């Protein structure tokens, strides 16, 4: 399966650190899958202007096409002003409607305050539902104190990220089988 780990921020380091950990864990323990880490901070992204995603060039086109080609998307996002960062919303805006159909999407959220822990429920999940993603319902919420430099020093966070990966892979596998079953029923 094709897995994209997306670090959805260009500021700060927590989301990137969690994304790196997630991607490295996947590469190490699930080498049979193809994992790519996309850190938005490393790309020159254009703003979405309504064109088909195939018509974006350069980094913007690469990011949009990688997400569209993936089976699993693991999204990292910080919480800014009680929502997701504009750069991450821009990524969603590049994509067509129903872009995440048949894809499993898991989330890990970094934040400076516990007060933000329901923000993904009200800000991020509606976007993913609209794009028809199969959402891994439980997300990983990570606070500042779980990091030291760029390392995750909180074992509980590591365990929860590992479970997120495991859940996403399991769900993707199950949904793939469901599709196969349905295909047989359709008979075309």
């Amino acid at each position, binding site marked *: 399966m094709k897995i994209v780990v997306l670090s959805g921020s260009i500021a700060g380091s927590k989301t990137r650190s969690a994304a790196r950990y997630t991607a490295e864990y996947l590469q190490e323990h699930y080498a049979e899958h193809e994992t790519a880490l996309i850190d938005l901070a490393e790309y020159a992204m254009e703003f979405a202007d309504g064109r088909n*995603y195939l018509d974006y060039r350069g980094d913007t086109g690469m990011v949009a096409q990688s997400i569209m080609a993936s089976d699993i998307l693991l999204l990292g996002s910080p919480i800014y002003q009680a929502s997701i960062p504009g750069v991450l919303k821009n990524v969603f805006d590049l994509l067509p409607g129903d872009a995440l159909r048949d894809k499993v999407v898991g989330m890990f959220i970094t934040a400076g305050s516990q007060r933000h822990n329901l923000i993904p429920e009200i800000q991020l999940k509606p976007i993913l539902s609209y794009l028809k993603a199969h959402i891994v319902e439980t997300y990983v919420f990570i606070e500042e104190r779980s990091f030291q430099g760029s390392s995750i020093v909180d074992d509980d966070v590591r365990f929860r990220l590992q479970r997120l990966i495991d859940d996403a892979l399991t769900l993707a596998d199950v949904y793939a089988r469901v599709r196969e079953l349905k295909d047989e029923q359709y008979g075309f």
Partner: protein
Amino acid sequence: MELQFDANKGLEFGLYTLGDHLPDPATGRRISAEQRIQEIIQLATLADQAGLDFFSVGESHQEGFATQAHAVVLSAVAQATRQIRVSSTSTIISTSDPVRVYENFATLDLISGGRAEIVAGRASRIGLFELLGYDIRDYEDLYEEKFELLLQINREEVVNWEGKFRAPLREARILPRPVGGTLPIWRAVGGSVGSAVKAGRLGVPMVLAHLGGPVSSFKGMIDVYRETAAEHGHDPAKLPVATAGFFHVADSSQQALRELYPHINEGMKITNGRGFPKQLFAQGVDPHNVMNIGSPQEIIEKILYQHEQFGMQRYIAQMDFGGVPFERLQHNIEVIAGEILPAVRKYTRKEAA
């Protein structure tokens, strides 16, 4: 020439092609652009011989298409056919000079002996804006300004006009003039109600494209179009509506789905970057779904139901998307001519009282 639909003849039946040039998913191979264009002309010839009413070719400037110069292809179609009406579906008027478009289609009308029409649209993919030197931020304004100029050129042989996106026209005589003096000009409408409202406001005929979904949704759009037209002082009874969508006939609906699905799904992946969900496609055979896919009898019933709901004057079928082999198109036309068309005409004809 004003469009005259004779209710005594029943629903008109036509074909349209987007001019896509895609591999056949069964073999992975793609015929040459030369062969594709020849086959489009051949398809039009067969449709003409089979007594269909209309044949049209689309303009797309992205990869995977072969009829960028659709007016040139249409002139060959005109020369190869005798009765069938020839049109674009659609001419992208936003990124064209309406003067040149009119010159081309008036000429097409002279070549075809008065059979030409224009369907003007604004493109779903926007790569052609960059290719042809337009700014995508003008997407809406370009369409409205150029569409209205096209209508004005059609109404008036000598044009005085000033606008934002083209040099002014002063006492400009736009020639040649078509056989009947004017050309039928339609507005292409996709999936949005807003587009149908705008067409109604202008009081121009509408071609409504429908890829799939319930008849009731598209009926809503047609109702809104007619209501808006009436609110703006146009007589809806004089505004024809054409509907356009996928068509494939086989011995059974299951076979039709099996034969067509890979073409639509793979073709859409290449041209739009997304396939067609199988679940939605499977619903295409429902009698109340707009996709005309199934056995001859099922398709007849679907078209009659659509006609009853929409009250459209013309239905145009897209049967060649995604590298469908030519023999399959031939078979479709044979069944249309032999079974579908006679029934559709018989049951949609208004009996002379």
